[in-house]
């Protein structure tokens, strides 16, 4: 026992290592140090463990691959959260703003009335729908019904007349994502009341029927004006996604229809038609993906410089913002009724 040197010995950091060290010091033969099980496994001295595993040999490569998959998963997860949650936040905010605008326009004292005909700029509010049976209160309808406009709420198909005008006015809305404004439309039944306020006045509609693909077209009511709400529906919890089909709810105007001012477009881009996504989003999606890749590389670089704890303060908001932008554009690719 080397008792005299005990106080000079440093505190043992690791038990095994300490044990090895005095043995090493006492030995005359310093060269014969047994590198014994540095990874902590039981030293069984088997022949197969002398060659490192594939993972160890390509440790950095495997890490990068796994990290990439995780990143993709994060992006997808972000998108899912965005689709079902964050986009609703965005839509509610847009609806509030549009409602304020619309209310101001509809006010008789206003200098400018809401658009009622001609070439209406897409995105401008054209109607307010209230349907207590479907949980809709002062829902602002914007002009244009592609997924681009769905971010703001339900959209009016541009080549159909506005609600209250002679003809069949078509309003398309989402039933699952972006706040699901038409989520309860499938539950409308015959006789339910709908009230629509446009620049031409207040109109009262009564739901006549609900139809799906292949059904007969609705009868023309005495007033000559119909309002059709289009959305998607399906059976089961995620029905509209897994088993979705288009649903049309027709409501007839009770009362006198008004005339359609001139200049209505006679055709619309395919993106506005019910059930279509907006393929025009592919460009922006690509751009956002480039931005996302750039921000990813930037974050990796920042982490390597500053370490996790400090870098995340900068990375988190950037990643959140880029993810929002990318998901927002990706949502445009989703059909405008889901």
């Amino acid at each position, binding site marked *: 026992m080397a008792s005299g040197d005990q106080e000079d010995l440093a505190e043992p950091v690791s038990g095994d290592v300490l044990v090895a060290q005095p043995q090493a010091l006492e030995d005359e033969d310093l060269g014969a140090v047994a590198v014994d099980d540095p990874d902590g496994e039981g030293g069984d001295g088997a022949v197969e463990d002398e060659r490192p595993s594939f993972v160890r040999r390509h440790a950095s490569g495997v890490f990068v691959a796994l990290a990439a998959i995780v990143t993709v998963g994060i992006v997808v997860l972000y998108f899912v959260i965005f689709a079902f949650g964050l986009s609703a936040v965005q839509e509610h905010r847009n609806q509030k703003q549009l409602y304020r605008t619309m209310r101001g326009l509809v006010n008789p004292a206003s200098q400018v*009335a809401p658009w009622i005909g001609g070439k209406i700029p897409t995105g401008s509010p054209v109607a307010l729908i209230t349907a207590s049976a479907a949980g809709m209160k002062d829902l602002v309808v914007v002009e244009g019904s592609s997924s681009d406009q769905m971010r703001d709420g339900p959209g009016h198909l541009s080549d159909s007349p506005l609600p209250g005008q002679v003809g069949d006015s078509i309003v398309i809305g989402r039933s699952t994502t972006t706040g699901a404004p038409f989520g309860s439309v499938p539950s409308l039944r015959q006789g339910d009341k709908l009230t629509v306020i446009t*620049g031409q006045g207040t109109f009262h509609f009564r739901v006549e029927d609900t139809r*799906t693909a292949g059904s007969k077209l*609705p009868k023309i009511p005495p007033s000559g004006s119909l309002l059709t709400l289009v959305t998607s529906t399906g059976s089961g919890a995620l029905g509209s996604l897994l088993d979705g089909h288009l649903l049309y709810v027709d409501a007839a105007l009770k009362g006198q229809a008004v005339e359609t001012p001139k200049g209505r477009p006679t055709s619309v881009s395919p993106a506005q038609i019910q059930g279509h996504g907006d393929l025009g989003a592919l460009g922006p999606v690509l751009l956002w993906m480039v931005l996302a890749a750039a921000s990813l590389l930037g974050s990796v670089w920042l982490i390597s410089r500053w370490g996790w704890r400090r870098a995340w303060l900068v990375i988190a908001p950037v990643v959140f913002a880029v993810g929002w932008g990318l998901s927002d554009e990706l949502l445009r690719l989703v059909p405008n009724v889901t």
Partner: protein
Amino acid sequence: MRKLLLALCATIVTSVSLFGIAGSATAGASTSSGAPAFSSTETIYRQNLVDTTEDVVDKRTVTVNVSQTSNLRGRQEIQVSWTGAHPTSGIVADPNSIDAQQEEYPVVILECRDLANGEVSPTTCWTESWSERYQDSFLNPFPAYRSDQFASAADRAQVAGAPTPLPSSCTSLPGPTQHWVPFVAADGTTYYGGPSGCAKQPPEADNVGGSALPSNETFGSTGLDGSGSANFDVWTSAENASLGCSTTVACSLVVIPIMGISCDPTGSLAPHGDQPTAGAQLALATSQCEAGANFSPGQLVNPEGNESLAVSGSLWWSASNWRNRVTVPLSFAVPASACAVVSAKNALDIYGSELMIQATSQWEPAFCLNSSLFPFSHVQTGEPEARNLVAAGTADAALTSEAQAGGYGKPVANAPVGVSGFAISYEIDGANGQPYTDLKLTPLLLAKLMTESYPGDLAVKEEDPALANNPLNITLDPEFQALNPGITHGVAASEAASELMSISSDSDVIEALTSYINADPTARAWLNGQPDQWGMVVNPAYKGIALPVNTWPLLSNFEPKAYYHSDNNDCLYHSPVPYLPLISAPLANLEDISESLQFDVANSTTVCSQIDGTTTGEKLVALGRQTVGYRFLIGITPLADDERYLLNAASLETSSGTFVAPDNQSLQAATSLLSFDTSTASWPMPYTEFSSSSAASSAYPGTMVVYAAVPTSGLDSTVASELATWLRFAASSGQTPGLGVGQLPPGYLPINATDGLESFVQYTDEVADDVQAQNGQIPGIADPSSIDGVDDSSSFGTGTFSSLSSRVRSAGNSVFNSSMIPVLLSIEGRTLHIALGAVGTYIVGTIVLVLLFAGAAFGGILLGRRRGIW
């Protein structure tokens, strides 16, 4: 008892049979539209006086039929046909030419003015040339006409009918034996004519500048079976003032089947001084007069032979022939020009469609001659121009067949007032020299003709590589040959057979024709560059041309440089221009095309006309009149013109292999395809249905509806009520078929309930009401301002809400015409079936998988962390 019963039976049988015969006789007499308006049969003789007995050498029973004799219009063609006449020999191809008078045994048809006593005389019958009414002889003192036993003594004199004194310009011109038949014009002037017309000729005569039209005296040829027919061009005073036929000046058609002179060669009936001396003179006179034909029956004239005067058409005026005449009284319709002199009131001007010319020319007198109505005038313009005039406010109404692109800027209703269309008319002589009557054309053939794809001229075919493999003209096109057998392969009129006579101005007719062509998939593919099954390709200048258009462009700019040589065509040598547009040479309007077809005038301006063979003043002129027997002309004309000028209309293809000729049935079949279109407030023709739908296979593709486009607001109240009256007339009595004043001529489908067009009648009446009220409404359209381009700029989100809504609502109390609700709404219930479920499943599945993988990867990273790998 038995006898009584027998008598009773006999009576019954006789009365029934008499009844039946009378009934069938009346039934037969109630003629269908195909029966002639005039028919007459007579027995005619040629007889020679031998000693004191008549020796009948020829006896014929001739029946003459004329297709129409009343309500005749200027330049109208009527058909004269006959049976039982003497076969013609020494036939001249063109029966209207001056040379045709020398045919032996022709049937001479002349238009003559009636004398005061109602009779006709050779002095009031029109011929264009002095040679047709003057005969003289230098050597033989007794030409055939002097031996005419039925001629008066004055006529048998050596100098008969000459003017006294003989005008100085005529000195030493006539031979010693002369016979003059002067012409007395409507104003009383006597034109003696004479050799080379030295003693004054009417202004319309041939060698005094002539009339713009070929002359109408006809020397028809009779076939070997004794029958023949000819088309005769009827003139009014508007076409020939010297003849002067009109509604107030009676005229007749005189048909003279030439039998030859009935001879009295010894002159026993003539004054002593006019008798031939016995011996050589008598023998000559006898042989000259009693001669028959020198050519064989049915033989064409040739330069070597000499026609025999005794039996030629030149002696139509001779008493023997004249007494065999058939006189057909003619009566004329009130011409539209009558309105110019009748009324001092301002005429209501209606601009537009040439398709309506025949109808309005019958309608105009109905208005101007009725003192309680007002005069109106149809100003012929192209339809696009007429619509622009209405949009600008210069015109109050337009006759049009299309809607105005971009709208009129005010509510304008389209009231249907006529159903007619275009015809592809032709004058083609078949390989046998006779007129071809059964032409069939496909849209592809029409496209080939219009796109200058046939070279037409060898110079172009040889020099233009693009057209080198195309047939020279349509008669060498296998597609045409298969459809139209009996036409010479490679006609002489090659340039005319490589183009469709068309117009240079904007027209809805061209739009309709190009819509028909464009709707045919074969024609469209060919226009886009696909060769047809024999390798013919479209002229590259027209490849891919966007149709329809309302003006046909001339796009080829190829010049056959080797041909542009002073020896070939001096005009083109000095001023080279693209050649193919010279072949197309479009005319100014459709009426010009009708006239060119009527008189066989080819329009291609490829002839260099020089004055005295020098370069000064040389210019390119039209090819001109084609030779009868070798004619080939195709052009687009209004359908109603075909009926008036007896033009042939081609049958056009609908579905593959089916060809439809224009007639009331096929026009009606086309109208049954129409449905009201709210965006244009009209009934557009669905051209794609002709080739695809079986219901449309019997419909004539050239059918066009003519609308009166009348504004329903902004018109002066007098004009508005006049237009309303006019519209009501057009929808009711104006649609009564007939040739009288105010009736609808043939070539139009009458708009009435019998033809299933009562909706048109109703609509036009409603438009009339709206025009009268000037209420800004258009029947069948809830909101007139929703029609393309109707300007209502106040509705674009400007102005306050309340004033806006009141303005919008005040634009008409009755929003709906309750009977038209199904028509008003355009239900846009696009009940689509989109397989959202399938796509959704894939997407959701992919997302879930990706998340799982990500989770696993994350787990792997953590594990690696713990194991110290990274």
